[in-house]
């Protein structure tokens, strides 16, 4: 069993709030991703779980026991760092073995465990090398092997893939998820990359400015965003957000007019519509100048300029139109999100 609870966690540096009012329960064997832009407090939250940082207030509970004040080395956590943090003077073998030595695991077990961990990350051939003689991907895998070698209570991964190129990142994503499923170890993963979050997580915690914005499964976060921040952060390209006025069920902003919205709501609102819920049509809600066209092969992204707003539309892969000409786009009214203009909270 490995259940972690964060109760009213705060972390302040002087007047600066690193993390505020974080309440979170991480379930046994769950893969939880902390997602947010840099400086949102996700890494600080993870470091507090690791014991590398103490919360200013609040309790961290592991399996029913408050672990505040317990040193990092006495919490059974294994962490993978962004910069890998391999010990430069040791070989890969010694790096992987280091936690076993430190945790006083009987030396007779070391060799078998190191080799098993190395095999799991496909690093068996490189055990005699020093970290300096490894490629970025290999270093990453060595760091991963060092974390899994002692089968800890919880894995903590702090942007482990951010230094890799796109292709390698995709491969490592699959590998990390496979290993986590196989070892069934509770995992907390920090990233600013929403694709990583969507693909890896059982649940995502979206954070901003030290506070949790929303907790949910990737589907919930994507299809049911709690506010404009979450809506705009998730998705690639992200949701289009347009501020305007809603009156009698009709939304209007510069160049945009949408009927059939709930007439019980009114006033200044922001509507949200995902690029894939827009279609290029002869008649629609928005007619505007074509600002950009990005064919990617399997889909074409069309960017329209409505006033000072850029609207992203996912169009058919064969769609082509000259820049500067006009295009008309229809929205799926059922898929339009409404947010309060002042608070950003979701209305519908």
């Amino acid at each position: 069993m490995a259940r972690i609870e964060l109760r009213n966690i705060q972390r302040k540096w002087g007047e600066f709030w690193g993390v505020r009012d974080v309440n979170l329960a991480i379930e046994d064997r769950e893969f939880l991703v902390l997602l947010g832009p840099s400086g949102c407090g996700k890494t600080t939250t993870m470091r507090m779980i690791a014991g590398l940082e103490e919360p200013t207030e609040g309790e961290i509970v592991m399996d029913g026991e408050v672990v505040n004040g317990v040193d990092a080395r006495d919490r059974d956590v294994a962490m993978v760092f962004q910069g890998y943090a391999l010990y430069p003077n040791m070989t890969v073998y010694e790096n992987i073995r280091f936690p076993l030595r430190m945790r006083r695991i009987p030396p007779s077990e070391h060799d078998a465990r190191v080799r098993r961990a190395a095999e799991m990350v496909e690093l068996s051939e490189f055990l005699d090398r020093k970290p300096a003689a490894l490629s970025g991907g290999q270093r990453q895998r060595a760091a991963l092997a060092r974390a899994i070698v002692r089968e800890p209570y919880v894995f903590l991964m702090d942007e482990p893939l951010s230094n890799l190129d796109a292709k390698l990142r995709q491969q490592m994503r699959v590998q990390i998820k496979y290993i986590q499923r196989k070892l069934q170890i509770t995992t907390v993963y920090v990233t600013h990359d929403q694709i990583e979050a969507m693909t890896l997580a059982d649940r995502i915690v979206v954070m901003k400015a030290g506070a949790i914005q929303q907790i949910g499964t990737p589907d919930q976060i994507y299809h049911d965003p709690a506010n404009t921040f979450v809506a705009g952060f998730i998705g690639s390209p992200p949701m289009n957000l347009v501020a305007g006025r809603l009156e009698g069920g009709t939304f209007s902003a510069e160049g945009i007019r949408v009927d059939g919205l709930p007439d019980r709501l009114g006033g200044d609102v922001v509507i949200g519509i995902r690029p894939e819920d827009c279609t290029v049509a002869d008649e629609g809600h928005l007619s505007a100048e074509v600002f950009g066209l990005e064919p990617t092969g399997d889909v074409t992204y069309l960017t329209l300029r409505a006033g000072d707003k850029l609207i992203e539309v996912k169009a058919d892969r064969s769609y082509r139109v000259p820049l500067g000409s006009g295009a008309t786009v229809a929205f799926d009214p059922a898929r339009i999100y409404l947010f309060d203009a002042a608070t950003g909270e979701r209305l519908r």
Partner: protein
Amino acid sequence: MGARRGARGESRLIRYLILGSWALFCLAPVLWFLSIGLRPRVEIISPQPIYVPHLSLEAWHMIWEDWPMARYLRNSVLAIFGSVLIDLVLAIPAAYSLSRYRYRGRDDIGFYILSTRMMAPAIVAVPIFFLFRSAGLLDTIWALMIVYAAINLSLVTWIIRSYMLDIPKELEDAARTDGASDMRILVEIIIPAIIPGIITASVIAMIFAINEFLFTLLIASTPNAYTLSVALANFTGGSDGLIYNAIALVAFLAFVPVFLVVVAIQRHLSRGLTMGAVKG
């Protein structure tokens, strides 16, 4: 193409010429006192220029046979290595604390340590003399070790600290989550990572120690504690007058080991010197 290659060859020639002349300029005194050391006394004090010098081991025999030079050399070596050892034992934990822990007055303490270097030696000479006298350590190698260590401690601490600051914090965090104690982190992670810094600091400390004169003269009063640098003073007085060739030879002997060490580690040394200077 050909002209270009020629120009490149020319510029390289000029570069070597400039560097070579500079090297010669710097080495001239060394070569000069080597040549003095290897010639008979009569020839050295002759006012006429001598174009073909006569090599003589007169001074060489004299310093080894008439003077306990081996003993001076041993004293030097023991005092210097002992002092560097003391410095490292004290400076490594101090630098670790200064570079890694957060506590009140940390920077002030760091500056205080550095400020001990700014003191004029003459100011503390007398108190140090009395201190060692009451401790019964006058005229011993132990006293030299302690004095050299004290003189160099600030510099050694500061250099090692600057190397430690270069080690990513992540490395320590990793070791901590892997279950390592502070001591283990220092011994297994930090120290191996700053070996170049430790070597640099040690060599710089050695250079200062081998050249130290004032305190050695103060503490050493017999061959018990005479070192090479003070032994030089032996050849400047007495009925024989100034024994130039012996002075030159002893100075050269004191210079050679340091020179060799510096050549061997010069890459680390320049890095260490600039880091110690720039970072803080």
